[in-house]
């Protein structure tokens, strides 16, 4: 019994540490990145909601479900990529202009919409 409560206590304290330090660290990220982060979370949430809806209601227009789900997922992926590209703290993309990264993002987004629109049926 004791060990279990101990563990839970441990876990709780750990979790609070994580949340706290995450909050404090996250405040340092620039605003632009925060906006992208918000969009990422939004896209992920949309995907999750669609998936839940599919579980509850059924897959019937499978085309529509797939295209909707993949659309949100696709935007999630694209914006994660964008975030990694424009993140000033990363060293991998030194030579890349943020403008170029945004242009690529828009292009890929258009392509994604085209494909989804084609598949929606």
């Amino acid at each position: 019994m004791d060990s279990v409560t101990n563990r839970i206590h441990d876990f709780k304290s750990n979790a609070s540490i994580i949340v706290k330090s995450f909050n404090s660290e996250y405040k340092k990220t620039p605003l632009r990145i925060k906006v992208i982060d918000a969009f990422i979370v939004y896209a992920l949430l949309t995907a999750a909601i669609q998936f839940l809806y599919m579980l509850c209601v059924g897959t019937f227009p499978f085309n529509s479900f797939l295209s909707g789900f993949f659309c949100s997922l696709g935007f999630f992926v694209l914006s994660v990529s964008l975030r990694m590209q424009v993140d000033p703290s990363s060293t991998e993309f030194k030579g890349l202009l943020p403008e170029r990264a945004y242009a690529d993002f828009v292009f890929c987004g258009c392509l994604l919409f085209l494909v989804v629109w084609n598949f929606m049926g």
Partner: protein
Amino acid sequence: MAFSLRLFSVVKYESVIHEFDPYFNFRVTIYLTKQGFYNLWNWFDDRTWYPLGRVIGGTVYPGLIWTAGVMFKVLHAFNIPINVQEVCVFTAPLFSAFCSLAAYLLVKEIRGRGAGLTAAAFMAMVPSYISRSVAGSFDNEGVAIFALVFVFFLYVKALNTGSLAWSSAAALAYLYMVASWGGYSFIINLLPIHCLASIFTGRLTAKLYIAYAPLIILGTLEAASIPVVGFNAVLMSEHFGAFFAFGILHAALAIRYIKDILPVKAYNAAKTLVLTSGVVLMSGILLLVLFYVMSSPTFGWTGRSLSLLDPTYASKYIPIIASVSEHQPPAWPSYFTDLQAASILMPAGLIALFWPLTPASLFLILYACTAVYFSGVMVRLMLVLAPAACCLAGIALHEAIATLFKGVHAARDEQESKPLKEDVKAKKPSKPAKAGFWSILPGFSETGRPIPRDAAIVGLLGLAAVALFYTWHSIWVSAEMYSAPSIVMQTRGGDGSIHIFDDFREGYAWLRYNTPEDAIVASWWDYGYQTTAMANRTVLVDNNTWNNTHIATVGRAMASPEKQAWEIYRALDVTHVLVIFGGFIGYPSDDINKFLWMVRIGGGVFPDIKEKDFLGEGGYRVDTKAGKALLDCLMYKLSYYRYAEASLMTTGQLGFDRVRNVQIGKMDISLEYFEEVFTSEHWMVRIYKVLDRPARDGKLPNPRSSRGKIRRGSS
């Protein structure tokens, strides 16, 4: 050069389309050019699979047909009046040239320009790929291999630059690949393997994510938009690997992100948190997937990919897949004929890739390893191996040349070997790599001490000889072995003269002009495409083997005694039966040799056909010791009907079969329910009419003379 090497077939024969499948593609292309792109999706073909028909638009990989159609339209837009057939004949050589370019780009991206050049040279001449892309073989593989290499190039490019634009370009190329060939599942499985390997060897970068994740999302949606793939893109097990790696990639990235942002202590706690929750989530999803997969009998795999993973699977359960010769495991010599020098240089290239091991070279290593395995299972997949082997051989050759030249130059600094200018140029890039590569060989020290000059020159000459032999071999192979269209046969007589057998086209032309428009022709499925394309008649089964039962029915009819076969054919409204017979001229791939497969496939659905009834003493034979059922069956009768007398004239022996080199077991064959209406010049194509009611007097009046009259009258 890649283009011109493949024109041997046009020079030697004429501009015809080869083999079986290309005839179908050709027919669909004609439809496309006449009816337009949109009608193709809705085309219901009633000329095949009688009485079922086939929805062409939903069951065909349209990439090749689009390509040819677009080329045709573009040429006509410039007012160049060209026939559809010419476009189709020259599509494959053109794309093999593109493929060399793609190989150059891929290897350049991995290893630098010199290696790219040698790889492209290998690619241009690799016999295995020539076999599928000679002029006239208008087959999916011709464009698909180009698409394959191009997807890999774009993926590696995205991996190196970390740019979303390249990644989406890779997704577009992937769309083209999916549209052209079922082999796209190779890509969708190879990429996750590479992704996982990168993660677990600690090479996770943001660039990997950018190259991989958008490709999976976009690629899956695109694949699902191609009707023949459809929902399989998310439902079949072949594709689950990609999603699995996708999930792992995200978990790994999340961990990395947290590591960057959190202090150490919190990181450790958070890592366990993410890992445990990730594992729980993944196992939940995995359970769901497993449940789904287990609920289907084949575990969600298609038969073809199952036979790849378990090489014995097809021969056990699906005789129809095993019956196609190109689905069988290759023999060792075929590696040598198909790859020649590349197969020797390949391991060296593989080792060279480890110095230095970048994510891109890791990709090529994985590609080569998996391709070697797959080609070991199926002859056809030798094609997938070919680009890998060429890239590796190109790298190996380049490294060797560069090292040897370094030896030459170090010994004497002036340039003696002017004639080999290209090689000198090729030497410049990737200098740090080669020292490491050669250091593994005994005798060359770690410091990259140059090789003695004499040895270097001998080595260079040796390499030049290898390259020359490779070229010579490839040209010989493409001229002699792979240019034969298998619809026009060519043999050399004892005096060196060349005989050309054009029996197939003779037979199909007879069908086209002498049978009613709605005639239904039964033949073994190999000849289905050709019959619909060249004779324009309805067939029962064709090379798109989607309905096993239907094929088994035809196999059963061929294996039954005459009366039963007649009943089966009447039930299917068949008016003509076509058999291919090679005993007269010694053409080995005729119906008698394929007959055991008919029995096996037929027996797979109808258990009353047993293979052992058809086997005589000591195996399959057609002489007097043949199995009793074989001597009675329809195929035997149709093949050898009236053959005994004919062979007396040519071979001097009654009923002597030149393919199997035996005297046939039954001479006086009479037909009650079928009537011979046509036999081609060399007896290769024999066509019989299915009679309405049995003929009363067993033997018919000599049909050969009456046939002569008909032909003279019609021509």
